[in-house]
C-alpha cells in the first residue's frame, strides 16, 4: 500500500495500463503538455509521446466519436472530457453510438472505450460548470458508470475499466482529486464492477452514496455517533451501473431505515431509483419512508452561500436521519 492522492492514483492506473497493453492510448483537451485540467495526465506525454497521449482540439463530439471508431478498430482509447459539463455536447456519440453499437449490430462489434470526466459543484463555477450527471449516464443501457470515492478504488476501478470490452463512463468528483488514501501497489489489483463497499458499519440507519456523497455520509455517521448515539451503515456504491442493490437491501433489512445521498438534483435523480428499488425489495422491513438528500432544484448559483445551500451537506443527512426516528 502507498498513500497517494486521487489524481495520482488515477494517473498510475492509466500509466500501468499503457505499459501493460499497447492498444491503450489517451486523448483529450490539454492532456499533453498542460498535463490535464485536473493534472491527472501530468508526465504521461513525456513518458509515452504524442501518439499515445494526444492533445485534441475542443471538439467533444469529434473526439468521443474518434474514440468509438478507434475502439471498433481494435484499440482501447481513453478519452478525457475536461468536465462532465462538456459531455453534453458529446451525448450523440456516447448515447447513440458507444452505448448501442454492440446491441444494434447483433453483437458483431463492441466498443472498449473509457471516458473519463470530472464532475460536481462546490467551486463557485456557476450553473454551466457545476453539473453532477452520473445518474443521467446510468440511465442508458450499454454503459457502465463508475463513481469512485477513494483513491484505492479509483485505481482498481480505472484499471478494470481498461479491461472492459464495453464503454465505461468514469466520473471523478472535482472535490476529491486532492483526497488522500491507501492505494494497493499490486499492478494486477482490480476492483470489480457492481460491488458496493460497506465503508462503515452500524445498526440504526443505512446511508447510501457514491463519489463525493460517500464522504458526506461518512461525516454524517460520525456526527450521528458523537452527538446522537446512533450508528450507521455507510455504503459506497462505487459503480452505479451495474448497481449492487443486494448490498443495500441486506443492510436496510438490518437497519430498517435508509437515506440516499447525491449531489445531483433530487427531481428525477438517481437517488429516486435506489429509493424505488428499496421499496420494491425491502418494503416490509422499512420503519420509515426512504429519504433522499440531494441537490436543490435550481441551476447552480454562483454566490457562495447560495451554492452551499443548493448542495447537500452532512447536516442535511443527519437531519434526515433524525426525522425518521
Amino acid at each position, binding site marked *: 500500500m502507498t498513500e497517494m492522492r486521487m489524481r495520482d492514483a488515477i494517473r498510475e492506473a492509466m500509466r500501468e495500463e499503457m505499459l501493460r497493453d499497447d492498444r491503450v492510448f489517451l486523448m483529450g483537451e490539454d492532456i499533453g503538455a498542460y498535463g490535464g485540467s485536473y493534472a491527472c495526465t501530468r508526465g504521461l506525454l513525456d513518458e509515452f509521446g504524442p501518439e499515445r497521449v494526444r492533445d485534441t482540439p475542443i471538439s467533444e463530439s*469529434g473526439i468521443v466519436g474518434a474514440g468509438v*471508431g*478507434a475502439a471498433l*478498430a481494435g484499440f482501447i482509447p481513453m478519452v478525457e472530457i475536461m468536465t462532465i459539463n462538456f459531455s453534453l455536447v458529446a451525448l450523440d456519440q456516447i448515447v447513440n*453510438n458507444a452505448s448501442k453499437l454492440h446491441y444494434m449490430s447483433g453483437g*458483431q462489434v463492441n466498443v472498449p472505450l473509457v471516458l473519463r470526466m470530472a464532475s460536481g459543484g462546490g467551486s463557485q463555477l456557476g450553473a454551466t460548470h457545476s453539473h453532477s450527471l452520473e445518474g443521467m449516464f446510468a440511465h442508458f443501457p450499454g454503459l457502465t458508470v463508475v463513481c469512485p470515492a477513494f483513491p484505492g478504488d479509483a485505481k482498481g476501478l480505472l484499471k478494470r475499466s481498461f479491461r*472492459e470490452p464495453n464503454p465505461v463512463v468514469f466520473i471523478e468528483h472535482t472535490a476529491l482529486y486532492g483526497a488522500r488514501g491507501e492505494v494497493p501497489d499490486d499492478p494486477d489489483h482490480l476492483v470489480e464492477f457492481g460491488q458496493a463497499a460497506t465503508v462503515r458499519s452500524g445498526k440504526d440507519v443505512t446511508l447510501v452514496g457514491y463519489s463525493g456523497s460517500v464522504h458526506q455520509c461518512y461525516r454524517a455517521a460520525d456526527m450521528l455517533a458523537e452527538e446522537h448515539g446512533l450508528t450507521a451503515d455507510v455504503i459506497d456504491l462505487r459503480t452505479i451501473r451495474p448497481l449492487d442493490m443486494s448490498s443495500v437491501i441486506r443492510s436496510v433489512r438490518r437497519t430498517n431505515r435508509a437515506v440516499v445521498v447525491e449531489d445531483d438534483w433530487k427531481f428525477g435523480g438517481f437517488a429516486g431509483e435506489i429509493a424505488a428499488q428499496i421499496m420494491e425489495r425491502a418494503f416490509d422491513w422499512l420503519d420509515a419512508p426512504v429519504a433522499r438528500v440531494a441537490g436543490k432544484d435550481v441551476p447552480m448559483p454562483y454566490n457562495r452561500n447560495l451554492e452551499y445551500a443548493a448542495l447537500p451537506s452532512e447536516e442535511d443527512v443527519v437531519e434526515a436521519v433524525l426525522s425518521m426516528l
Partner: protein
Amino acid sequence: MSVGQAIPTMVGEPPDDELQQRFLYEMLLIRRFEEKCAEMYTRGKIRGFLHLYTGEEACAVGAINALRDDDKIVTHYRDHGHALARGVEPNRIMAELFARVGGTNEGRGGSMHIFDVSKNFLGGYAIVAGHMPIAVGLGLAANLSDEDWAALCIFGDGGVGEGEFHEALNLAAIWKLPVVWFCENNGYGMGVPFDDSLANDVYKIAAAYQMPSVRIDGMDVLEVYSATQLALAHVREGNGPYFIEALTYRYRGHSMADPELYRTKAEVEEYRKRDAIERLKRSMIADGLIDEPTYQALVAQVDAEVDEAVAFADASPEPGLHTLYDHITKEYEGESG
C-alpha cells in the same frame, strides 16, 4: 434545384471489361433489391423507416469497388446499396429488414443500421453525420497501427449542416488521417434543397479544411470509381484525407413515408434520363461488351437473387423473446485480454 456542372476530375485506372460487367450487375442488383423492398414494405413485411437508394447506385458501386477488402466503411441510414456493393449477402440484408434471426444484425438493427464486420462494413448510422467522428477514429487506428488500410465515410448533403461534419473534417485534416469523405449530394435533405441549407457548395466547404476536394458526376459509375481510386491512393500515401462530393439524385421519396410535396414529377423524370444503369448499359453495348439479350439475362439473374433473398428472409424465424437482453454488453472474460 439544379445540380450544376460537375468538375472534371483526373481519372485513375480505367475499369477493365470484367469490372464494368461487375458494376452493371451490382447496380442492377441494388435497383431491383430496392424495388422489392418497396413492395415488401407495402405488404407489411418491412416496418419502420425505409430509405431507398434507387437513382444513386453509381455512388455505392463506383466508390466501394475502389476499396480493398481491409478498408473499412461507415455510412448513413440509406445503406442497403452500400452493403450490397460491399458484398454483404442480399439474403441477410433482406432478413434484417424482415427483422429475422437470419438478418445481418439478428433483427436488432433494421434498415438504417446494417452491419457486417466480416466485410469491414461497420454500420449504417441513422443520426445525420453521427458516424463521421467514427471515421476519424478508424483513420486514427490505421495510422496508430502503421497499416495502410483506409476508411470510407459515406454521408448525405444534409450532414454538412451538422457540427459533427465540421469536427470530423477538421480532426482528420490536422491528424492527416486516411479517410475518404464521400458526400452523396442527392439534392435534398428530406424535402429541403441543399442550396437552401448551405452557405456554400459542399466541396468548397470541405476544401476549407485543407484537403483535396472534388465534385464529380455521381451518376457515372466510371467517374465515381476513378475519383475514389485517386482519393484512396492519396490517403494511403499518408497525405491526409480527401473529399468527394458526388452529385446524384434519388428517384423515390426520402423514405416510404414521404408524400414528395417539395418536387415535381417532371424533375424526377429529368434525372431519370441520366440514369446510371442505362448509361453504363449503352456504353457497354457500344463497346461490344454486352448486347440486349445478355443484359436481359443479367436482369433475370438479379431478379432471381432478389426473390431468393425474400424467400430466405421469410423462412428465417423471428428472434425469441428470451433473447431480448442478448448483446446489451459484451461479456467480460477476465484476465485474458
